[in-house]
């Protein structure tokens, strides 16, 4: 194995978190920084050629190919896992910028109690269910608010505040935690579907507010001096790289700064296999380069910033920490695996008028927080946490994915002249049932470890996910689908459309989740898999301290939502970047002065 010259900092993974940490280090220190990125380099100027549904929407050109790396899945510890052979429920990115290059742009904050959720629920209910692994993060809202604001400024998030330093503002999210400032840019324009959804929600007495979005509404220059144009509503959004750079992506807000700093380098085509460590210190990483050569890269500080499952897998492959065993509840690596609880009303609305749904972005529309957290939840609902409802976004309006959205059974077959005629007639005339995105709490059964059978292209074991919905999530689904149906019925009244209940506009109606629902690894949920290397205030209960530093190996830091003990109704990017700012401050201001454990 070839050993290269040591660097001060090696960063594994060139996505949002790794490159934000690199930007902070490169601009605030003179350290020599090297980022190792498995995928190709990306040029935003090429992105205009990406307005193509076949290559990007269907063949996932921005994502990591499962042929290169995937995971296995089983529902419970009693089963043998099978590999996820083609992507379904989540889609990790690849290349410089990672999944940050193809996100949908929903830029929510979590509720303030979320960072102390265990304490909050214990105070509220006196006890937690036996198998719950809900945990506190080791800091609170007041500690993180300014870092969330830094993340929102970096991205230029569009929205309307509902609570500025305790002052409640109607029209914004009145349920949110206090924020120090109004959003950097105002809410986006409304499409017709959004106008109707707003009215439908208001008529039920709910408080819809504009979905906070990274697909910015107007031209914006961030504090680093990076300028981006407002969104063009072209509709090629989630799953695609933004062709004009309206959406903040690591290649347009971080790389332009990093390229100006000679103490930063990025090496593409470098697949990291192990963190090398000895006597409680990380020595460096080994990786395979594009030519297939195995290389040792020594470093004084190692930062893991790959996607959630890859970060956790690197710990397991490198034998850092004890793997979690749900039978004994011992071990820490791999615990608190969560996804998000996603569903929608099993209904669709057919309108006489067309929606012009090709004009949109994935973060358009309105969100409703009246049932988020524990707001609006009654004891008879049987759940600890709810979530948010949304409507008005038409993120799947491209023709291949949308053709054939007709009521199941409307035609005798789902092919042939009758089906084609009805599908063509209803194209651009259908609104799906209103959507729900809920908190996913961690349970003992859901965890990650190494698969005993399946391996990657180097022969290393794949990560194995054991994940299924528990009774709590079944009740969340029931609750959410009930409220979402009320919203959808209201939307049908407001729009004058024809409501069809049962069987949403799915292209795979045979998988339309019958109760009790099982985790469906073949159908898209979100790309927000979290946990596996959680942070917390005690080394006996968490892998990382509240600054994302490894408890036992002080020169090993981990970034991203692998550190999050539970999963929120809000999408994670803002919080992920806020936590990364917090980690960068701790590393630069404390660790570099005293290179030891911070806590």
């Amino acid at each position, binding site marked *: 194995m070839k050993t290269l010259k040591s660097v001060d900092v090696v960063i594994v993974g060139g996505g949002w978190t790794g490159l934000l940490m690199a930007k902070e280090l490169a601009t605030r220190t003179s350290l020599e920084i090297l980022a190792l990125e498995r995928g190709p380099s990306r040029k935003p100027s090429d992105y205009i050629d990406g307005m193509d549904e076949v290559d990007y929407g269907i*063949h996932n050109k921005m994502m990591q190919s499962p042929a290169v790396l995937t995971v296995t899945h089983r529902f419970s510890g009693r089963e043998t896992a099978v590999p996820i*052979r083609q992507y379904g429920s989540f889609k990790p990115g690849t290349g410089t910028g990672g999944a940050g290059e193809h996100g949908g742009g929903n830029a929510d904050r979590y509720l303030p109690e979320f960072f102390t959720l265990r304490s909050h629920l214990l105070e509220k209910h006196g006890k937690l269910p036996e198998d719950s692994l809900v945990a506190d993060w080791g800091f609170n809202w007041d500690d993180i608010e300014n870092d969330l604001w830094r993340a929102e400024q970096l991205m230029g998030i569009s929205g309307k505040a509902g609570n500025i330093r305790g002052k409640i503002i109607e029209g914004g999210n009145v349920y949110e935690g206090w924020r120090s400032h109004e959003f950097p840019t105002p809410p986006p324009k409304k499409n017709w579907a959004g106008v109707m959804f707003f009215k439908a929600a208001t008529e039920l007495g709910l408080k819809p507010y504009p979905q906070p979005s990274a697909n910015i509404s107007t031209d914006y220059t961030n504090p680093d001096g990076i300028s981006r144009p407002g969104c063009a509503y072209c509709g090629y959004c989630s799953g695609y790289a933004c062709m004009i750079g309206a959406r903040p992506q690591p290649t347009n807000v971080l790389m332009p700064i990093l390229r100006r700093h000679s103490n930063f380098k990025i090496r593409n085509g470098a697949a990291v296999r192990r963190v090398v460590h000895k006597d409680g210190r990380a020595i460096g990483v080994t990786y395979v380069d594009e030519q297939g050569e195995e290389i040792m890269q020594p470093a004084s500080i190692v930062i893991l910033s790959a996607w959630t499952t890859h970060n956790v897998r690197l710990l397991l492959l490198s034998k850092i920490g004890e793997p979690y065993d749900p039978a004994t509840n011992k071990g820490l690596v791999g615990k608190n695996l969560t996804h998000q609880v996603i569903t929608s009303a099993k209904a669709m609305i057919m309108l006489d008028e067309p929606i012009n749904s090709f004009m949109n972005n994935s973060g358009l529309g309105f969100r409703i927080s009246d049932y988020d957290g524990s707001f609006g939840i009654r004891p008879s609902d049987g759940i600890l946490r709810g979530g948010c409802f949304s409507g008005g976004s038409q993120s799947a309006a491209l023709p291949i994915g949308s053709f054939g959205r007709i009521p199941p059974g409307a035609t005798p077959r789902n092919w042939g002249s009758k089906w084609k*005629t009805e599908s063509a007639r209803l194209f651009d005339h259908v609104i799906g049932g209103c959507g729900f995105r809920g908190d996913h709490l961690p349970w003992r059964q859901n965890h990650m470890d190494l698969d005993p059978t399946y391996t990657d292209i180097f022969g290393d074991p794949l990560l194995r996910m054991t994940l299924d919905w528990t009774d709590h999530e079944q009740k969340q689904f029931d609750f959410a689908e009930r409220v979402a149906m009320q919203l959808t019925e209201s939307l049908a009244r407001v729009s004058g459309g024809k409501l069809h209940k049962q069987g949403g506009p799915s292209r795979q109606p045979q998988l339309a989740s019958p109760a009790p629902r099982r985790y469906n690894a073949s159908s898209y949920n979100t790309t927000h898999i979290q946990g596996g290397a959680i942070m917390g205030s005690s080394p006996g209960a968490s892998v990382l301290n509240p600054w994302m530093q490894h408890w036992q190996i002080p020169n090993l830091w981990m970034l991203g939502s692998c550190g999050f003990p539970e999963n929120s109704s809000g999408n994670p990017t803002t919080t992920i970047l806020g936590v990364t700012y917090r980690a960068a401050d701790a590393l630069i201001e404390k660790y570099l002065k005293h290179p030891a454990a911070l806590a």
Partner: protein
Amino acid sequence: MKENISRRDFITVPAKGVSAAVIAALGASLIEPQTAQAATPETYLKVPLRFFTAKQAALIEAACERIMPADESGPGAKDAGVVIYIDRQLAGPYGHDKYRYTKPPFVQSVPEHGYQGKENPREIYQAGFAMLGDGFVSLTPEQQDAKLESIEHSMFFQMLRTHTIEGMFCDPLHGGNIGMAGWKMIGFPGPSMTWRNEIDKHYGEAFRPPPKSLVQLVGHPVKGMEDEPV
């Protein structure tokens, strides 16, 4: 399956409304030499095949036409060149399963785990040729429908149906949606640099700008992933 690189199999499709750029991208030649420049309703395109033999292409084209027939709602799979799209996808990395995890052991599992089979799309189509049978092209439309109904639950048919939708509504750079026939049928305008001045101006009424393909929009050739090395 052994490739016969000297093979010269073609499929002919109507050339109505096909731009010179698409003709060039398909490597196609015009039959009807009296029309030197623009294509006319009488002209046909002779498109070289990459995976199918001419006979297989005719078989798949006939089956796709029953999934998406030309009718009062608009043109069908044959007019849109769906079989050209499928031929190119099967010849490229997708057909060889380059986007799927293909390590053994292959085990049967529940639908929630997606397709777990060993066969790649090329092999699934090979099996499909036999399921349809050589005589399929000469059956009446009703007999063809009955045949397809009998294999409706097969992996091959599900794939063929999916690919027919893809070929009907893909960007023309992939060989299907010839003349943007599919997009015109449903009123989809294709990619655009901006709808910023339009998004809030057409509430409740149809806004139907004439479609543009990606190549027309960006003004330079764009290669699809099917052209990447296998």
